[in-house]
């Protein structure tokens, strides 16, 4: 990969300079990009933005705890074949009819280069990332039931996200480019929020940001509010026509920001303490 990659975020995804650099380097080196960060920092949206920005299709593979590496390549639907064979009215001799390509398989067979998102890769079994390695290195795999070999026409752009539920194996980590999305500082958050709202009154925005970051500072919150919750909150404030004066030391619609009861109690205490 030597042609320049020049992703700079999209109108609905504000990326900071560092993220842009790392995404482009990963693409140019032809290595998967592993992204970690607090929940709600836009890891999954990143892949969409990269695909849009580079005018490519996006394939999504959302990993569950039961996902196996092979499923990403292809699935041989044995159960369906068994059912079809019951009444002898279908031709089940051609196994190829029952081979369905998984997201990675589809990414390989795509005519143009695509972006493949493998979301929450840490949810799966610990061996899962290692199982993918061979196919990722070789950019091809064999369908053992038919003997067909699927080879990638071009290397898909792989974006992997992880929630740090499990440690990922070393052999896998060595191959990836790694980025940790820090929680946006206020200035960046300001820009992010603006992309979501047209005509947002300035004082409301500033007061809301003040209140939001104050809330995040509270010690002992089980789940600190994230960017997506901030956006939900501002929506709620706008819809109900809340005056920005009310945001000085109150939190109307706190439930959009804090989702756990203990956190709501903690926040209430903190607000009372400030008032005194």
């Amino acid at each position, binding site marked *: 990969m*030597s042609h320049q990659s020049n992703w700079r975020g999209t109108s609905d995804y504000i990326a900071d300079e*560092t993220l842009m*650099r*790392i995404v*482009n*380097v*990963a693409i*140019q*080196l032809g*290595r998967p990009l*592993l992204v*970690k960060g607090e929940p709600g920092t836009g890891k999954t949206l990143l892949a969409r933005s990269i695909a849009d920005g580079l005018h490519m299709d996006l394939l999504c593979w959302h990993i569950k*705890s*039961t996902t196996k590496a092979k499923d990403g390549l292809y699935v041989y639907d044995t*159960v369906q074949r*068994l*059912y079809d064979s*019951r009444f002898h009215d279908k031709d089940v001799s051609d196994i190829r009819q029952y081979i369905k390509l998984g997201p990675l398989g589809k990414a390989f067979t795509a005519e143009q280069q695509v972006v493949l998102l493998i979301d929450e890769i840490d949810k799966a079994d610990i061996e899962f990332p290692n199982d993918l390695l061979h196919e990722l290195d070789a950019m091809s795999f064999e369908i053992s039931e038919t003997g067909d070999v699927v080879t990638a026409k071009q290397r898909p752009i792989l974006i992997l996200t992880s929630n*740090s*539920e*499990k*440690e*990922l194996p*070393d052999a896998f*980590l*060595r191959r*990836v*480019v*790694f*980025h*940790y999305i*820090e929680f946006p500082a206020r200035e960046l958050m300001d820009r992010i929020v603006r992309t979501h709202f047209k005509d947002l009154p300035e004082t409301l925005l500033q007061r809301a940001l003040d209140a939001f970051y104050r809330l995040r500072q509270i*010690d*002992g*919150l*089980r789940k600190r509010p994230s960017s997506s919750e901030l956006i939900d909150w501002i929506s709620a404030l706008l819809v109900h026509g809340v005056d920005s004066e009310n945001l000085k030391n109150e939190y109307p619609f706190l439930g959009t920001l804090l989702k756990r009861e*203990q956190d709501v109690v903690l926040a209430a205490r903190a607000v009372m303490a400030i008032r005194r």
Partner: protein
Amino acid sequence: MIFADLFYNLRTAGLKVGTGEWLSLMQAMNEGLIKPSLSDFYQIARALLIKNENQFDIYDQVFVATFADGALPEAEIEKFLQWLADKKMPQLDEAMITALQALPLDELRRRFEERLTKQKERHDGGSYFIGTGGTSPFGHGGKNPAGVLMGGEGGSRSAVQVAMERRFRDYRDDRVLDVRAMQVALKKLRRLSHQEGILELDVDASIDKTSRNAGELELQFSPPRKNDVRVLLLLDTGGSMDPYSELVEQLFSAATHIHHFKHFEALSFHNCVYEKLYTKIAEEKTIPTADILIRHPHDTYMILVGDAFMAPSELTDRYGAIQYSHHNTTPGLEWLRKIKNRFYRSIWLNPMPLRSWSQSWTIKTISSVFPMFELSVRGIEEAVDHLRKMPRRQESGT
């Protein structure tokens, strides 16, 4: 090899950067992917060499040491940087600025070291010693363009300055738990229950269903019948655990929110386990310890949390319990051994740092009964690994 120092310094600092990763960095440079700026190099090198945010802090330190000509920071300097942080900037007048700008960096550094040896304590607002908000050329928040920056923001942010900020200090996992790390650590406790849970073909049920269907094939998949991960948490809520009480409460409340254990129970004790255990942390309701030994199956995961720190007599003597309400005819140590004998999958988590364990006789003794791990992210990981590796044992005749 260009920038070889960075590679070797990282490895010396304990980060296992491999040659493959280093070569990918060289490849990136070779292909002109890195801009000719130290900041860009800092970012890209980190993305290619460091694969976990809990190592970012070490990377920052090594980076500063490699490119800013300093020694790898030690613990005292870390503390130093800590209290120099976030103070307001004073206003320097023109005369001072010109005077200070005249000092070359080497000279500044020499004077800095000189004063470091002279200064004995924290200092604020002055003009000679190293401190905050002052006008001496050293410290933080000063308006001294020729100064030596210690932590925090300066005018323009060079890579070295960014690295010196140590933004990722909180992400290290070798520290005893703080709030954020609690989440991650407890998520790892979830591994305890992932041994079971795959759908399997229930042959008998399938045959049954197919037969009832007059021979039309009907397959039945079910989760395996055995899902019997049981966890017992015993928490020390004695006086010496007061500094850790918030920690323990958080561990307790977070643990109760893990719903996929078949059975989860938390009980507490004071300093050591005796003949009674407390059913709620604050209240005085008790149940006999012997009950626990009988009621729960032997393959229950038993996790004890405490500092294991007490007077030896509390552990070894009959009536050794310092609380009046315990009339323990059996010494605490005996009770601990009973627990270990009954529950072969037991471990002990200690919030005190590992290096202090050898100084206490009771900690050493208790760690000879239970495998002891630090109450930190890494410690919990190791404990969970240890527990998972133990094969199931059949109940032996007692």
